[in-house]
């Protein structure tokens, strides 16, 4: 078990976790139609920063905001590991920006980058939990970030996966996903601390298809089954779904949720506010889940290309 010490979100909805959750409570969305952001790309609906952001300064700002809530001197310690969750990093380079972020804080350890498609943000928290529980470090700074580019938008358009309108997760009318950008940070520790704690995590592959989810929700179901070990569906207060609003993802998640006996648990699907923020999604959506609940038990699940699925269970008494 590891303990959440602090967190931050920087997104088109606002600066800081609190500003973000207030924007959501007020029903504000970052999604807008963009017609001339990237050359050649057809108009698309996404949640983008008004001013294009540089990857490293955005991550640094988010980590500074989260570490700023804690006693000084955690970021630069040998007992702290930086874990970056991203799919495309800084213009396709993932390792250099991670090194720059860790170096900015004077951290002496080589950072870890988790690049496990859309599940990265949850997988990075699972990696943090394991390293802290093994006693290899006492603090982990998990930073999730992706910024949108011509590369990503053109690729998703070529898949015909983008909705021309704000996405509608779990709706029969859903027409696809929207992309988004954000940076978010959670600081975990293996030292007991009041508030939210990360109790369980699991990663499973569908072993079915590299770009389409399993029809039976295999990997997602196995993740939910694992994180439900020791608790019952009645103990879960909120389930944070992936909810990309593609036809197949949401159908798959519905099956996995039902197989795991969680069909009576309230769900939150945040893509209508943020779009799909890729490497940031798991971190952003975990933080929002904690803030929406205030206390209780929360499960966050994600699925992605490569057939990978992940889930974590968090609790606050």
């Amino acid at each position, binding site marked *: 078990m590891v303990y959440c010490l602090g967190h931050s979100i920087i997104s088109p909805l606002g600066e800081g976790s609190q500003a973000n959750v207030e924007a959501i409570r007020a029903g504000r969305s970052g999604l807008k139609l963009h017609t001339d952001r990237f050359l050649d790309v057809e108009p698309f609906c996404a949640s983008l920063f008004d001013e294009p952001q540089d990857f490293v300064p955005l991550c640094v700002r988010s980590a500074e905001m989260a570490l700023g809530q804690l006693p000084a001197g955690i970021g630069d310690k040998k007992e702290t590991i930086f874990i970056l969750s991203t799919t495309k990093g800084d213009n396709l380079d993932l390792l250099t920006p991670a090194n720059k972020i860790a170096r900015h804080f004077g951290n002496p350890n080589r950072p870890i980058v988790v*690049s*496990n498609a859309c599940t990265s943000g949850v997988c990075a928290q699972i990696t943090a939990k394991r390293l802290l*529980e093994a006693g290899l470090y006492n603090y982990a700074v998990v930073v999730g970030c992706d910024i949108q580019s011509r590369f990503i938008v053109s690729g998703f358009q070529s898949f015909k996966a983008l909705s021309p309108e704000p996405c509608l997760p779990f709706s029969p009318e859903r027409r696809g996903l929207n992309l988004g950008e954000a940076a978010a940070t959670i600081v975990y520790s293996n030292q007991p601390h009041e508030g939210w704690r990360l109790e369980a995590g699991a990663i*499973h*592959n569908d072993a079915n298809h*590299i770009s389409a989810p399993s029809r039976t929700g295999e990997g997602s179901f196995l993740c939910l089954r694992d994180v439900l070990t020791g608790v019952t569906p009645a103990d879960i207060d909120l389930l944070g779904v992936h909810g990309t609003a593609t036809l197949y993802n949401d159908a798959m998640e519905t099956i996995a949720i039902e197989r795991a006996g969680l069909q009576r648990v309230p769900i939150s699907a945040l893509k209508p506010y943020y779009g799909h923020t890729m490497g940031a999604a798991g971190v952003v959506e975990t933080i929002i889940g904690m803030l929406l609940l205030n206390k209780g038990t929360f499960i966050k699940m994600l699925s992605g290309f490569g057939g*990978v699925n992940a889930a974590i269970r968090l609790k606050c008494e």
Partner: protein
Amino acid sequence: MLNGQPIAVQETGEKMLVELYRRYAGDYPKFFKMDTLCRLGFVAAELLLKGESVDAVVMANRSASIKNDTDYMATITDGNYYPSPALFVYTLPNIVTGEIAIRHHIQGETSFYILDSYEELEPIVKSQMADCTSPAAILAGWCECNGKNEFYAKLQIIWNN
């Protein structure tokens, strides 16, 4: 090399991967759809998983999916904009772990890390083993591809008892 013994090959570069595929697998036409990173990981896993089964696949490299990213970029150049979905799907490094999971019916964990060196993967895999839901055997290693004929893989099976 397999278990310390060199394997005789005629070809080099990507052709060598096809040669090894034909010799050690041959029954999986999807191989020819894969990008070089996936072909590399696929062939290495074929060699190692003969008669062995694993519960999880954990891989790392330094340059993510850069070779295929570059190939995809070539389909969206200025004035020649025809984005290829067939290439875009391989612009994530963890796809190779997914391809191996499909081939060998592995429904356990698949993870991909970007690290500076192979040694940095060891504490990650060890702490995964120590986790309560840890699998019994992990296919773990390095799988790096910087170009059609520029790649390196080093995989091993790690058991937790």
